[in-house]
Each structure stands twice: as structure tokens, then as C-alpha cells.
């Protein structure tokens, strides 16, 4: 078995253990938040009998370990119970809201990579110069203000004063795209509605940029710092002495080793955006999972809280796994480590 496959198997095993731990933890935490979920769901006028009936339906009258057993049993059948917030199966809610959030963070992630990394490279190449300083200021601004502040600023600039971008929803109301996968971009492509795709991309632009700005700053700063450090290493000097062209030195000998820390951070940012996107989703009326997650916590909707947290945890673990694999592929010391030994 190659080193990469062994790494993958090890990471997968650990991920499953972490998920099991998270499920226990969140199951217990959700039940100690103050407030009776049945009472909250039924409202003030429900009779004690109605509240008790719902408590029984939710199995809240049973010991917590027994409730957890039922939860695992339901989970094995692919069920997460019914949401008290939307009165629908939690799995259906997640299936409906998750694609919207995934599309948003995917767009944000692409912006993060396509803008953050080049900015870092350009800054490193011009260390100490005007461009470097400009990039550093811009990066600092991106990192220092939270996404929702950028969301409001962008909305005021590009929707209120300059009405260039739409600010609510995933697509214009004039388009009727049949839902096939739930991923709007994919559904537009599958149905051949390119005008709808363009409109969906137009809609995602502002929220994705607001969400990505902090990551762009972080990626630019990290890439710059690592590349500046790499440029000072002897192997770069040696490459120059061999007369390699500057672009080749930058791409192969400076950028590639500098990419590993940036990749780790970008990977974690991807997953963190899943949980952190809720304010951006709220401001841009984006019907996503993060907004749903906050709403269900405020309503103490136990099943939905557990389902949402599990999904976000799984996203973190998958992102970590992908980053580990990418690093293993990029870094020969990891890729060939086991074979050499």
C-alpha cells in the first residue's frame, strides 16, 4: 500500500471517530440549552397535555442515553428526525439548504484562490515595493473586518448607490429552473439555461466576494510571507546561478514549497465558511444551511441542531482530508516517505 493510501485510510478512521465524538457532544449540549423544545414549538397557548404529547413524540421523556440510541438507530436508516422549525424531515431541509451554501462557499473559495494566491505571489516578487505594500494593506483590511461588515459595505456600494448587483436570493424571479440536483449552477447547465446560469453567477458575486475577502487577505499574506522566506533560501540562489528563467524559479522552486501552508489555511477556511456564512446568507437572503443552523439553534430545534452540526463537522473533516491528500501529493517527503524507509 502506498504512503498516500495509508495516510488516507488513517485519516478516514480518525475522521469517523471524531464524527462519533461530535455527535455525542452536540447531542448532549443541545439538550442542556435552556428552554423546553416542545413548549417553544407549540407556543404559549398549548395545553400541558399537548406539550407532553410532543415531548413523548420527541422522546424527550426518556433518559438521554436512550434518546441517543434512538438517534443512532434513525441515523443508520438515513433519518435525522423532524425539524420543529420547519415541520419537515431534517434530511429534506439539509438536502434543500446545503447545496445553496456549498455553491456560495465554492464560489468564495475560487475567489480566494484566484485572487489571494496571485496577490501573494506578486507581493513577494516585489518585496518592499509599492505593490507589496499595497497588497499588504488590502490583505490587512480583508482580514481585519468580518465578512458581514464587508457584506453590508458591498451592498451599500454596489447595490444601493451603484445598482449593479442583485442582493437577494440565488437567481432572478424571471427564471424557472427545474430542480434536478439542487445545485443551481449544475441545474442550469443540465437544462441548458445559460441565461439563468449567468444570472445565478451574477447573484452569487457579491455574497461570495464578501465571504471570500477575509480568506483572500489571509491567503495573500501567507503566500507572500512563505515565498519571501523561500526566495532567501540557498536553492533559489543556486537555481539563479544555473541561469534558470525567473518565472520558472518562481513557479517551481519558490511557489510550490510555499503553497503547503497556504493550502492548509485555504482548506480550513473552506470548511469554516460553512459555519460562518450565516450573516452573509442573512444579509443577501441566501437560502443556505448556515442561516438555517442559526435559526434552529435559536428555536432549540434539537433534531435540526444535531443534523446541521454533524454536516458542518463532516465538511471540516472532508476539507482536512482533501488538504492532507493535496499536501501529500505536492510534498515529495510525504509522498515517498514510507517507500524510502
Amino acid at each position, binding site marked *: 500500500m502506498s504512503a498516500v493510501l495509508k495516510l488516507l485510510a488513517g485519516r478516514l478512521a480518525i475522521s469517523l471517530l471524531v464524527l462519533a465524538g461530535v455527535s455525542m457532544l452536540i447531542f448532549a449540549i443541545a439538550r442542556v440549552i435552556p*428552554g*423546553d423544545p416542545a*413548549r417553544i414549538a407549540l407556543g404559549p397557548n*398549548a395545553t400541558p397535555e*399537548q406539550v407532553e404529547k410532543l415531548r413523548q413524540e420527541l422522546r424527550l421523556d426518556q433518559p438521554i442515553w436512550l434518546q441517543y440510541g434512538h438517534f443512532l438507530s434513525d441515523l443508520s436508516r438515513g433519518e435525522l428526525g423532524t425539524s420543529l422549525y420547519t415541520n419537515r424531515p431534517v434530511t429534506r431541509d439539509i438536502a434543500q439548504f446545503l447545496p445553496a451554501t456549498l455553491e456560495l462557499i465554492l464560489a468564495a473559495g475560487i475567489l480566494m484562490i484566484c485572487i489571494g494566491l496571485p496577490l501573494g505571489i506578486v507581493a513577494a516578487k516585489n518585496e518592499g515595493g509599492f505593490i507589496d505594500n499595497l497588497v499588504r494593506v488590502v490583505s490587512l483590511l480583508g482580514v481585519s473586518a468580518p465578512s458581514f461588515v464587508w457584506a453590508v459595505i458591498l451592498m451599500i456600494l454596489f447595490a444601493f448607490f451603484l445598482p449593479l448587483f*442583485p442582493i437577494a*436570493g440565488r437567481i432572478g424571479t424571471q427564471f424557472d429552473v427545474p430542480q434536478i440536483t439542487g445545485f443551481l449552477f449544475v441545474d442550469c447547465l443540465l437544462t441548458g439555461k445559460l441565461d439563468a446560469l449567468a444570472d445565478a453567477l451574477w447573484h452569487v458575486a457579491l455574497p461570495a466576494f464578501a465571504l471570500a475577502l477575509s480568506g483572500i487577505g489571509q491567503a495573500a499574506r501567507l503566500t507572500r510571507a512563505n515565498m519571501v522566506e523561500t526566495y532567501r533560501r540557498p536553492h533559489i540562489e543556486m537555481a539563479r546561478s544555473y541561469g534558470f528563467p525567473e518565472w520558472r524559479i518562481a513557479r517551481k522552486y519558490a511557489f510550490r514549497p510555499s503553497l503547503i501552508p497556504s493550502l492548509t489555511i485555504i482548506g480550513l477556511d473552506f470548511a469554516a465558511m460553512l459555519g460562518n456564512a450565516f450573516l452573509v446568507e*442573512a444579509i443577501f*437572503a441566501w437560502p443556505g444551511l448556515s442561516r438555517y443552523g442559526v435559526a434552529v439553534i435559536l*428555536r432549540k430545534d434539537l433534531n435540526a441542531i444535531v443534523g446541521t452540526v454533524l454536516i458542518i463537522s463532516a465538511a471540516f473533516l472532508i476539507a482536512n482530508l482533501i488538504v492532507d491528500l493535496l499536501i501529500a501529493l505536492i510534498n515529495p517527503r510525504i509522498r515517498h516517505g514510507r517507500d524510502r524507509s
Partner: protein
Amino acid sequence: MPRLLSGLLACALLALSALAANAERVLRLDEVAVGELDPAKASDYADSILMFNVYDTLVLPRQGGPGHTPHLAESWVGSGTEYTFTLRSDVSFQSGNPMTAEDVKFSFDRMVSIGQGLSFLFGNVESVDALDTYTVRFNLSEPYAPFVSALVRLPIVDKQLVMNNLGDGEGEMGDWGSEYLSQNGAGTGAYIVKSHNPQDETVMVKFDGYFLGVNERAPDTVRLRYGLEAATVRTLIAQGEHDISSQWLPPEVKKALAADGNQLLTEGGTGSFYFKMNTMKEPLDDVNCRLAISSAFDYESVLKLIAITDEISEGTAATGAITAGMFGAKPTSQALSRDVEAAKAHLAQCRHDPSTFSVEISWIAEVPLEERLALLLQANLAEVGISSTIRKVPWAAFAGMVENPDNTPNISQIFVTAVTGDPDTLLYGMYHSSKAGTWQSPEHLSDAQVDMLLDAGRAGETDGERESAYSALNDRLLTIAPSIYGFDSQAVFVARPGISVPALSDPNMAFGLDTMGFAFRLMEIE
């Protein structure tokens, strides 16, 4: 050449007018998430908007005055424990099925069996009998005067459609069609649900077969969006992308939008804002302490806090425990006012020494206005020598903590609305001892006279009897002061010019019921 030009111009004008005539009238509005589409579970404002447009009820509140008018019913007779309704024979559901007495019986049975939403309104109804195709009888266990007004909250459901879509569940009726009705409409209403995402948006289109017909200037399509942020609504309205805001916009945003030339629509007369005092915990277990606090409160300043423009405010002066216009309410000329000397006199008679206690004033974290109101009350109390602390409490925590008097804050702030427009649904849940310990009743009041008067208000057979019972109740509640009666609340909505909503702008067309003004069929879009 001039002829050619004028000809072209005429053609262009004709084409434009044809386009305008064929243009779809779309209404876009927003509310707090989620939108509950199932009539047996619907309860809050967004749900009610859906109910009053997708479904119909046997009766409707009379526009511009008290009482009710027949709607799906042609007429009704009854009082005491028996009410018999004769139904219209010309009503069809959106599915095409005719509406009959069986549908009414089914709708009632379904709501009570599921036991959620507003089913508590029908706790006194023992059974419903479909006497023939168009006659239905409600049998009550005891006289309940507000019964007819409660029927505005019983949407009539298409039995045949639901029976064809029963989901899994216990017993013969399975889930009573809950899963189906959480995504689809099954009513006779003027609007058909085209799509529904409870956290995002419900899209409705005009039902051409509506039994009363629909104004041709009424919206063809309605997009009810959920959970929009204030900044988003502000921008959308400025862009012309949104038509009516929810009532939950901050007053300063409403003011800014009004200054931009938008209209302010209002809906009032169905509820009030209260500071609830915990009567089971020191020091507010002493009536004199409570009277001191209610006398110290600055009723005039609170109106300035909630004013949007010089003419329009989110509330009007309170006259007592009962919202102006309802049975038992005092005339608007008798507005409550601050009396610092009286407050000090009451405080001197309180058995708790004000130097030894501090009262806790809570505010609901999701309602920022309440923080300002808490600060106002704190300043008022400081002037008479009562110290206080302010505590922010999330709604979910508040709903749980008020179940026990020991955990209930000394003072809580709540907006309460009569869900049927009748004072019974405003007052019974707040002040009857059997209902103590919910978010509506953090006073934990237990007063035999109040209980007796509330029961008398329910049982009164004539309007005069009810007026008398609620009037005495109002006096009693002013005497024992379980609450500070802050102001009579008024919902204010911002609407774009060109949208006409008579029920929210003309008092003579207003319904005495929350949300009913959002009957889209009665609106007009230019």
C-alpha cells in the same frame, strides 16, 4: 415625414399600452421565517398571511366595524352550546372539488387531532356534525361567546385532496396529510401555492376560480420572502425590487423609507405592549410596589420612542389592560399618565424597603426596541428611588424560564395580540390563574376576581354582558397592577408607491384582526 413619425409614435404607444395591460402584477413582501403552510400548525404572522390567502374560513371579521360576516358560510344560527352554519353551495377548492360540510368537519377534526398551532381556540368544541351537504353544526361543551370569532382561525381544508395524500403515522389517518400540507395548499383561497420553501420564499398565483372573484388589479403573483435583513429590505425597496416590508423593520429604517416617498401602512387595535411584573416574587408580590412602578413609568416618553413620523407611530397611548376598541376598553381620552408623587406614596406603603432590593428588568434579545424601553423604565424607577438591573434574555430561554415563578424576572416585556380579535384571546392567556407561567403570563397572577371576570367575559350571551364583564376586569387589573400597560401596539409597514392596500390604510376598510389586511385579493397594484 411628420406623418410617418406620428404614425410610428402612435404604434409605439399602442405597443407600450398593450405591454402594460399584459404585464404581470407581482407583489413582493417579506416576513419573519418560517412560513408554516399547514393550517393545523399555522400560528404566527407569516403563517396567517398564508392562511388568509390560500384558505378561507366560515366567517370573516366585518370591515370597518365590530362583528363578523358570513364568508364560506351563507348564514348561521345559534348561541350557547350549539352553532349551525349553512354553507355556500358555489364554492370549489383550488383542486376543483366542491366545498361541503364534510370538509368543515374534517378541517376541525384534523386541527384538534394534531393539537398544534391555534387548536387551543377550539378546546370548548366537543364535536362537529355534518348534517347534510351544506349544513354543519358545532357542539360546544359550555357556552363560549368568542366562538364565532375563533372561526376566523379555522381554515377549511379540501378533505378529498388530503385523504389522497395521507403520509405515514399512527392510526387510520396516518399523519393527517401533514407532510403534504406542509408543502402544498388545499384550500378555496384566492391564491394557489406555486412553490414553498419555509425558510426562503412562498410563491403564490391568483386562483381564477375563486368564488368571490378577484379584482383584476390585484397581484397575479405574490412572492412572500422570509427572513430578510433590514438593510436588505431598505436596499430592495430603494431599487424598486420589493413592495411591502414586514412590521419588524427598525423605526429609523421605516422613517428613512418614508422620507424617500414610500407609504406607511398601519394595522392596530388588536394588541398591546406590556411590562409584566412577577407577582409571585419579592418585591413585586406587594401590590403597592407594583403600583409604584406602574405610576412611575413615563407613558408619554415611550410614545416618542416608538414614533416613526409626526403622524404615524408603532403605538398609541394605553388606557388600561384592554386595547382601545375592544370590549371593556376605556375611552382613548383616558390615557394613562405618569404620576411620580403617587408612585412615591405607593412605595412608602410597600412592605419591602426600596433600599434593600433591586428589580430585574429583562428584554428579549431578538427585539432590540425592548432594550430602549428597559432603559427608559430603569431611569423612571431611579427617579422614585428603586434600583434596577437590565438583563438580555434570548427568546428560547425566556419561554422556558417563565414556567417557574422563581426563575421569572421581576419585570418582562411582551407584545400580546388577540389572535381572533376578541379580548378573550388577549386576556385569558395572560391573566387567568390556570394559564400562569407562559411567555404571555410571566406575572403568575392568581386572583379569584380576575378569574371570575374572565370566565364571565367568555360566557356572556350578549354584547352588553361582555362589555360589563371586561370593563370590570379592566378596573380590577388597573387596581392590582400585575402589568404596566405600556401602549396599544400598531404594526407599521412600508409600501412602495403604487400599491394600494385599503385594509391597511383606510380605517373604514380595516379588519379588526391581525394579518387580515394582507388579503391580496383586496390589494391593487398600479
